[in-house]
Each structure stands twice: as C-alpha cells, then as structure tokens.
C-alpha cells in the first residue's frame, strides 16, 4: 500500500508547479468563478441559487443569530447523546453475543432484521409514541446507530487471536489486566470502525428527524429557511451541516492516528 502511495506522490510531484495548498486555493477560486459565471449567464438560476456575496452575507447573518447557535447546540446535544449511548450499548450487547456461539446464533436473525430497517422508517412511529422531542430523536438515533457497533465490535472480539489470550493466561495476567492489555487493544480497530460508521448514521438521523419530524436543530432550520424563502440562509445551514460532518470525521481520524498508529505496523 505504501509503495503505491509513494508512486502517486512522486508522479504528482512532477506535475506540480505550485505547492499543493496554493493549488487548492486556485482551484477553489476557479470553482467560485465558474459558479458566478453560470449565474450571470442564466439569471433564472438566481431564484434557487444564492450569489457568492449573498451566501457570504448569509453566513454573517446566521453567525450572529442566537437561533442558529441554539440549533447547533440542539443538534450537537442529540448527536453526542445518541452516539455515546449507541457505542456503550452496542459494545455491551456485542460482549453478550460473544460469550457463546449459541447466543449469537439465537440473536442473529433479530439483529439482521432490525439493522436493515431503513432508520427513517421509524420516524412516524417515534412521533406517534413520543412526539417531536429530544428523547424521540435520540431513541431513533440509537435504534439505527447501535447495529454497526454491535456487528463491528462482535467481529472484533471473535477474531481476537486466541494465542494472545492463552499467552496472557500462562503468564497469569488475571482478568482485568487481560482485558486491558490484550482484549482492548485487539478490539480497538473494530471499535474505531464502529465509531466511524455510527457517527455517519447519527448525523444522518439527527438532521433527518429534525427536518422531517420538526425536532429542534440544524435540520429543522434547513426546512424552516426554505419555507420562509430565505434561500441563502438555507444554503449556509446546509454547508454548516456538511462541515460538521467533515469536522467529526477529521476528529475521529486524528484520534485513530494518535491511539492506533501501531496497527499499521502490526499489519
């Protein structure tokens, strides 16, 4: 893998006239210019698309709007709650499944069925049972984000190398230290994958329920601004949602690199 990456780098280096960040800036400028040109050529588009100054202005407006920040807080709160509950509950359930193969066999059909229900399908049910509340949003998030965690962590535990555990036993490491020094590092990569999958699911569900069920948050604001014909603001909030996703991904990647840098070596 590292070999192919270096060839790509080397080849790219030959093409390079400017350093990469400068190229990115130039490209971003080209994208903006093309966008402005398209709007100038077809003014009919202005009904749906904001001009660049309008978009920048909308960012300025929402940045000083307390409503926007309370929406950021509401979405962040739901995401944090939903994600942490999913990770903890999913890992515990995976631990239960891994105790004995017959437990996994018994639960298998239920897990497979529940995890394939398209999560948004539960919105009407959630609305009916709990109304448009934070509790409903978090419940829906957990109901769909918990399954990738269960499966990833379960496979992580099952695929642990038994020789390591036997070695730990022959050194009389004891249960707590075996879990900490052998099981936890062995499962960590699957746990990281689970976190990544669950995060994507969580953000999708949070924004989806906010938009479709009207719970407080950024998704609600997107629909609200569209209905109020505040189109530049709608785009600004959509972009914020995307940036939020990028930021969370970057954070997870950073944590993975910090904590799991040894995996590359182990492979």
């Amino acid at each position, binding site marked *: 893998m590292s070999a192919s990456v270096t060839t790509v780098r080397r080849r790219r280096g030959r*093409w390079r006239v400017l350093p990469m960040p400068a190229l990115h800036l130039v490209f971003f400028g080209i994208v903006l210019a093309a966008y402005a040109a398209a709007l100038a050529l077809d003014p009919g588009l202005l009904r749906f698309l904001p001009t660049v100054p309008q978009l920048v202005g909308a960012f300025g407006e929402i940045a000083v709007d307390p409503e926007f920040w309370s929406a950021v807080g509401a979405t962040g709160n739901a995401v944090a709650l939903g994600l942490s509950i999913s990770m903890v509950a999913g890992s515990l359930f995976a631990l239960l499944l891994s105790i004995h193969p017959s437990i996994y066999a018994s639960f298998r059909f239920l897990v*497979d*069925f529940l995890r394939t229900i398209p999560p948004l399908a539960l919105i009407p049910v959630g*609305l009916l049972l709990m109304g448009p509340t934070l509790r409903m949003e978090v419940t829906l998030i957990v109901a769909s984000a918990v399954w990738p965690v269960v499966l990833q962590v379960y496979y992580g535990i099952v695929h642990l190398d038994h020789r390591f555990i036997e070695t730990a036993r022959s050194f009389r490491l004891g249960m707590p230290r075996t879990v900490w020094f052998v099981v936890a590092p062995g499962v960590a990569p699957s746990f990281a994958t689970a976190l990544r999958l669950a995060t994507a699911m969580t*953000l999708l569900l949070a924004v989806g329920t906010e938009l479709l069920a009207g719970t407080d948050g950024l998704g609600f604001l997107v629909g609200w601004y569209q209905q109020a014909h505040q189109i530049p603001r709608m785009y600004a909030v959509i972009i914020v949602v995307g*940036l939020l996703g990028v930021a969370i991904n970057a954070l997870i990647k950073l944590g993975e690199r910090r904590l799991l840098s040894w995996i590359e070596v182990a492979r």
Partner: protein
Amino acid sequence: MKSSSSSLAQTLRRIALSAWMPVVALVIIWIVTTQSPSVFFPPLPSVLESFVTTWFGEGFVTHVLPSLSNLAVGFAIALVVGVGLGLILSALPLAHALVNPYAQFLRALPGVALLPLLIMLMGTNNASKIVLIAFGAVWPILLNTIDGIALIPREQREAVASYRVRPIDIVTRLLLPGAFPRITVGIRLSLSIALVLMVGSEYYGATQGIGFYVLQAKQTFHTDEMWSGVLLLGLIGYVLSMTYGLLERRLLAWKELQSTDSK
C-alpha cells in the same frame, strides 16, 4: 448412514437455535398486543391483515412500485457514476487531489439535508427523489473505487503496462476485479443510504410511495396500517441486504479460491 442422520440432527439443531428467538419474540408480541391492545400497538393479527390487504392489493402498484423503481434507478445511477468517475479520477492524480476535499465534504453531508433544496429545484416528482438517492449513494462507491484501485499491487500494474494490454482490458480485467473487494464495501453502504433516502424523500412533500403511506397512516391514526408499512420497509431492507450478501459471495468467490491456492 449414521453420519448422515447425525448431520441432519445437526442441521435441525442449527435451525432451532437460530429460529427460537424470533419465534418467541413473535409469540410474545402476538399475545401482548391481542390481550391488551392500545392505539399505539394494535393487535398483531390486524397488522398482518392490513399488511396483506394493503400490499397485495392496489397499494403495491400505487406505493411499492414507485418506491422500488426510484430506489433501483437512483442506485443504478450512483453505481455507474461512482465506478466510472472513480476510474477516471484514479487515472488523474492531480484532479483527484483537487476534487478530494469537495468529495469528502459531500460524503459527510447527510443527504436528507438536501431534500428541501431538491424539491425547490425540481419539484416533488420522481426525478427529484431519484436525484437525491443517486446523490447520496454515489460517494461511498466513488471513494471506495478510488481506494480499491490504489490498493492494487504495483507489480500488477507495471506488468500490464509492459505487456501493452489494451486499455479496455486493463479496466475490465485488472482495475475492476482488483478494486472490487473495496468497491463492494462502498456498495453495501450505498445500498443502505439509498434505502434511507428513498424513505426520507417520501416523507417530505410526497404524494405516493411506502414512506408517504406510513406517514399518512400515522397522521390519520391508522396505526395498524402504519405498522404494516414499517414491517414492509423492514422486509425490503432485509431482502435487499441478504440478496446482495449472496451476490457478493458469488462475485468474490474467486478471491477466496486464490488465497487458498497461494497457501
């Protein structure tokens, strides 16, 4: 003789082991909902009855077919565009480097957030739903295609280059099969995203589709119809995932063969 009967017993045991829990769950739900029916949880028999009358009648044509055709068309577009663009971008490292931040941004953007925008741009027709499904599903396939091609061993690419293999053969015999183990990861993710967006697009300004039916049943308090819709969506998800799992195993059979050969 003896061994075949014991293997039969083993099979039966395995089936019993994986079936007892769903059966027990079903029986419990059946008993609880018929003994103490509530508005929220109607008796299971009446949910099943409405499942049969709704989805095996005209509901199939008015709601299920539009939903499934949007899903199929949207996903097909995502597959073709994702793999095609992935092949092109892998051949152009500089373009890939420049486009990558935008692709990462769009992948991280939850597709449902674009619903109001697409409805404004295209109206509440099937086309806007298909675009939403295709848009949401394309990123995992695209990014995994690029990753998969990058993971093909360099010697294989160089061998192909030195034998002057025709470009079309490079694509169909080296790049696509070589990247497929990764592409299939993207397809799995994309399938579930597509299904989510299919449902989501039917909740927001729609007049037909399974999601629309469920939402309407909820708003008119026909909870047995609502649950029958949720049940149908669950079954569609399950069948889709299992079918693709089987397909994937067949498509990747050569890989397992190869790895056992080399051992």
